[in-house]
């Protein structure tokens, strides 16, 4: 069965510092991979997605993520965090090929706090 683990429930970084949010998945093949962000009181917005090809994916708001098959990971990174990046971040996986129904499995989420 598919599953997603975000090991860090809460992360605090200083404004201007670099950021890495971890995501590990369990799936029999290479899944579709997503990162979403949820600002307080809002719905989820897609940051980036990986389907195939280049394992380093660029997203919106200066975020990028790297797919590492050997580690079953899809970690999200940003070189310099801004105060407006404070939010909750969700990693998600979707099935590929004939198993793709459009359903996603979400991780538990990581709350990012940004210190001035």
């Amino acid at each position, binding site marked *: 069965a598919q599953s997603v683990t975000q090991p860090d429930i809460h992360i605090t970084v200083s404004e201007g510092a670099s950021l890495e949010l971890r995501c590990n998945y369990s799936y029999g093949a290479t899944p579709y991979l997503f990162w979403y962000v949820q600002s307080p009181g809002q719905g*989820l917005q897609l940051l980036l997605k990986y389907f195939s090809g280049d394992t380093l994916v660029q997203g919106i708001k200066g975020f990028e993520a790297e797919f590492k098959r050997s580690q079953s990971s899809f970690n999200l990174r940003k070189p310099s965090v801004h105060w407006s990046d404070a939010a909750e971040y969700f990693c998600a996986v979707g099935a590929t090929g004939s198993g793709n129904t459009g359903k996603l499995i979400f991780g538990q*989420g990581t709350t990012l706090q940004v210190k001035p």
Partner: protein
Amino acid sequence: DVKVTQSSRYLVKRTGEKVFLECVQDMDHENMFWYRQDPGLGLRLIYFSYDVKMKEKGDIPEGYSVSREKKERFSLILESASTNQTSMYLCASGTRNEQFFGPGTRLTVL
């Protein structure tokens, strides 16, 4: 831009009431989803629909039902609300490759 709207941002109901949460999308998507979001648990799928009048149970369907009479509208129904259904409810629509989310409804059951 894709737009997914939900009928209420905040809702307060009493135990035992029948509750309707409405979701409308404007992108002609086949798939629509209802999730429940609780702290530390992420998003859990309640139901999804892949076509009009078609539905499939998600991971936590107990206590909920859904209706999809038109392609653009997907309703979540709590037949008899209970306090343990106090939560944030998120609707999404999408294709096989992406989901788009509404702003959420924060439901409190007293």
